[in-house]
Structure formats: structure tokens, C-alpha cells
């Protein structure tokens, strides 16, 4: 019991825990739609594309979340524009923009010739270094994303499942597509200090993928994704505290372990089931 309660005496650990819960909740909800829309690569691209924004904000001493949001949303629009303009498949356009933006970030990063520990935190996450002001911003932005998702869940569901049927019956399918990309971008801004740019895609995809292994109903998929998405980062945070390992990576590894357990034991894919079927 002491092992669980001891860290809680530190304010930085309490802040980290609050951030982990909010980020886990937001990434699980948004991530469920990311998986159903086939946007996993897009999510990865937008998080990497946020990097030059973060570095630029550091250079001009502006707020990092503004830089990250501008770079991620700008990249989402650029990907849409390039794929339409060049008649390219969207994954091709994503590949081009994503690599270019991340390279720009590394380039800007290499122009800084003093200590840049803070910036490494954005790449790999440094959840225990979140300041009280950053935590307030994170909770407000995360709450905003959850509010929009709560308002639009059924429209997003219909437009994801059958864009033609939804569009013909009057839902603004194209506007919903753009809005959802913007929600991914804000989710990335919210998560960037917790898990870091490079691993955000795991938080977006793994809880929803785990849920998909366990259920074929949308409502239970969201519930399972939220459970995995919230519990794993909390467990990961404790494990990283006890073992003194990188927090972002540890949280992602816990999620991966849960996914593998679901794969091994799940009703459709489970090894037990296969063995039972073989025996019977």
C-alpha cells in the first residue's frame, strides 16, 4: 500500500497522475474513431509534424502548445491539399508532409547550441515535469475535445461507417472530416508532454485496437478503450517511478502488454480458443 501512496505525497506525481488520466481518456475516445476511420498513419504523421512548431515556439519563447497546434493543423490541411492537388493517394501525401515537417523540426533543433533538455521532453515525454499551469491547460483542452466528441459522437459514427448514406441524408461529411483532423491535432497537443511526439500514436491506436479484439459493438468498444487507455498510463507511471525508467515509454509498454494479453486471451483471436477448437 505504501508503494502506491508514497509517491502521492509529491505534488509533481499528483500532477503527472492527473495528466495521465486525462490524456488516457482523450486519446482512447479520439483513438477509437482514428482506428475505425483508418487514420492511424495520419495520427502518427500529425504528431511528428507538431515537432517544428514546438521547436519554433521554444526559439521565440512562445507557448509550446500554440506552436504544436499550428504545425499539426497546418500539416493536416497541407496533406489534404497536396493529395487533392497532386492526385496522390493520401498515404503518399502523408508520407511526404510528415517526413518534411519532422526534418524541419530536427533542422531547427540543430540550430540551438545550448542545453535543450526541455525539447527532449517533447520528443519522449516527461510527464513528471508538467507545471501546474501546463496541467490546467491540458485539462481544459482535453475537456474541450471530450465535449466536442460527446456532442458529435453519432454524426461522426454515421459519417465514418457510411459517408455516402450520411452525406445524402444531410450530414456535413466533409466538415466532419476536417473537424476530426482538428480534434486529432488538439489531442496531440494535449498528449505531447505526457508521452512525447514519437509515441503518441501508440496512445491513439493501442487502446482502441485492444477493444476491437474483445468486442464487436461500438458502445462496448469505447468503454473498453477508455478503461485500457486510462488504467495503463496510471500503471505505467507507477512502474516508471519504481523502476526509474522513462515514463512515456513505460506507459506505452503497459498498453502494448495489455494488447498482447487481449490478443492471446480474446474471444476471437485467443490462443485458448484455438486450442479448445483443436481439442474438440
Amino acid at each position, binding site marked *: 500500500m505504501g508503494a502506491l501512496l508514497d509517491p502521492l505525497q509529491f505534488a509533481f506525481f499528483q500532477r503527472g497522475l492527473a495528466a495521465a488520466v486525462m490524456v488516457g481518456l482523450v486519446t482512447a475516445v479520439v483513438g477509437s474513431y482514428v482506428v475505425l476511420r483508418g487514420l492511424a498513419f495520419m495520427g502518427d504523421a500529425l504528431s511528428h509534424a507538431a515537432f517544428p512548431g514546438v521547436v519554433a515556439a521554444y526559439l521565440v519563447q512562445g507557448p509550446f502548445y500554440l506552436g504544436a497546434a499550428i504545425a499539426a493543423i497546418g500539416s493536416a490541411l497541407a496533406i489534404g491539399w497536396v493529395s487533392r492537388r497532386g492526385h496522390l493517394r493520401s498515404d503518399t501525401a502523408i508520407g511526404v508532409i510528415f517526413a518534411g515537417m519532422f526534418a524541419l523540426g530536427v533542422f531547427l533543433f540543430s540550430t540551438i547550441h545550448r542545453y535543450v533538455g526541455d525539447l527532449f521532453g517533447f520528443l519522449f515525454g516527461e510527464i513528471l515535469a508538467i507545471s501546474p499551469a501546463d496541467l490546467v491547460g491540458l485539462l481544459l483542452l482535453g475537456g474541450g475535445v471530450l465535449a466536442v466528441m460527446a456532442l458529435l459522437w453519432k454524426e461522426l459514427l454515421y459519417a465514418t461507417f457510411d459517408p455516402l448514406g450520411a452525406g445524402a441524408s444531410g450530414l456535413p461529411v466533409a466538415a466532419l472530416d476536417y473537424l476530426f483532423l482538428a480534434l486529432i491535432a488538439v489531442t496531440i497537443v494535449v498528449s505531447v508532454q505526457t508521452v512525447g511526439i514519437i509515441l503518441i500514436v501508440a496512445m491513439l491506436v493501442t487502446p482502441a485496437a485492444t477493444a476491437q479484439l474483445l468486442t464487436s459493438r*461500438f458502445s462496448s468498444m469505447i468503454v473498453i478503450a477508455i478503461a485500457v487507455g486510462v488504467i495503463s498510463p496510471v500503471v505505467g507511471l507507477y512502474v516508471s517511478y519504481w523502476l526509474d525508467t522513462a515514463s512515456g515509454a513505460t506507459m506505452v509498454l503497459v498498453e502494448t502488454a495489455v494488447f498482447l494479453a487481449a490478443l492471446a486471451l480474446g474471444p476471437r483471436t485467443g490462443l485458448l480458443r484455438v486450442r479448445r477448437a483443436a481439442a474438440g
Partner: protein
Amino acid sequence: MSAVDAGRAHAAEDHQHHLHAAAEAPATIVLRGLTAGYDDRAALEGIDLTIRQGSLTAVFGPNGGGKSTLLKVIAGLLRPWHGEAEILDAPPGEAARRIAYVTQAELVDWSFPVSVWDVAMMGRYPALGLVRRPGPVDRGAVHLALEQVGMAQHARTQIGQLSGGQRRRVFLARALAANPELYLLDEPVTGVDATTQEDLMDLLEAEARRGKTVVATTHDLACAASRFHDVVALNRTVIAHGPSELVLDQEVLRQTYGGHLLVLGQQAVLLDDAHHHDEAAPGEAHHHEGQPRSSA
């Protein structure tokens, strides 16, 4: 006057030769000089077509003849390049809440984690607006629609577990639950068993009798001739439009299908892909052209 000419005159003179009671009904769909397509490739050219309230119309023609494109233009999903379109007395897309569109089965991701009930409920979403959640009225409408198509006992089933015919029934239930004035159905009877085809056509016929307008694309000429009241022969443009007997007219068929038709005495045999795959494994998709959704 050949049947083709009759069909053209029929279209041009706004159904004046038509003896159906529907001839006096107001127009639900009016297209004039309409051209539409994708990128720089036209799929439809010079379409003049008037479809009246209460009609049960099949659109037939070869693959790539523009059947689905015509439906998309009417549904407001594709903006025409030229010409005028008036759907339910409004520009395309404006009267969307009074339209139900049934998507081609091949364009649907059947592994999507939704149940029969969830899909039928989607028909109620557009009228609900943003904040409201489905209430007792919506649940009643969904239950009734599922009863009508004979799927109420499968309400909790994930859609991937259904047969081809059951999948079509569920999508028709979604349309019925929306209580629209205009039904647009892309290949509603393709790849379904005979019983399902009869059941679906009975329902659509009943809707038309209630004053709803039904327009469906089909590959199935026998179904078009026997179960629909009117037909539109389409190959990039309207070849003929008139009562469903036009489907049996060899001159209409020759002009619509060109070389893909084998004429044996009085019988015409269509060498098109009229055979479909009801026995497809659950979750197996038959993609032919386009993608179900864009990812950017």
C-alpha cells in the same frame, strides 16, 4: 415509332404518353441538360429526366454507364458540372433530410463494430440534430422498420455476421426508419436471394403507393421488368425512359448495352455481370471502383 423514340419522346415531353396515374403527380426529380463526372472524366452527359412523385423507377444500363453517378447527383453527393437539377423542389442537397440513400453493399465495411439495431438507428440521426439522443419515438421507428424487413429478431447481431440478403434488409430498414419522401437505392437487390428480393420489392412498392418516390439502380433486368413501374435506360445519357416494358424492347437493349447483348430470336441475353455473390464470406468486401471513404 420505335420504342426508343417513344422513350425519348416520353422523356422530352414530360410523360405525356404515360398512362400511369403518376403522370399527373408533381415532379420529385427534374434534371435538365445535366453533365457530371469525376476529375476530368464525364460519366453523364446531357441528362434530361423528370421523375414524378409516387413512381417506382429502376435505372438500368451497363457497368460504367453512370447509374451510381446519377444517383449521387440526385442525392447531392456529387455536384454536376453543367445543367439544372431540382430535387424535392430544391437544389440538390438542400432537401437532404427528406432523402434516404441506400449505399451499394460493396462500399460498406461489414466488419465495422455496429449491430443491426445501430445501423437502422442511423436513419434517425440526421433529424435528431446535434445534442439530442435517440428517444422513445426513434426506438419505436427503428423497431417498426426492423419488423417490416423481418430483422427484428437479429437486432443485436453485428452486421458482419449477416448474409447478403440480410445486409440489404438492414440498409432498407435504415431508410424506412428515416421516413423519407425520396428513396435512392444503389443496387438494392444485387446479390440477394429470391425471397429477399420479393420482400424488399413489396416494401418499396408499398412506399410508392403511399406517395413516396423510389429510384433504384439495378443489374437485374427481370426484376426491373416485373417489379418496377418505370425504367430509365442509361448509358452516359438517357437512352429511354418509360414504363417497365421498355426493358423487353430489343432496340432499347441494343442501344443501352451495345455489343454486350446476345440476341437469340425473341430472347435477349445480357452478357453483363448480372451474377453476384450472395455467398460471400462475412466481412469479405467486393471492391470494384473507388474507395468507401477518403482518409484525408
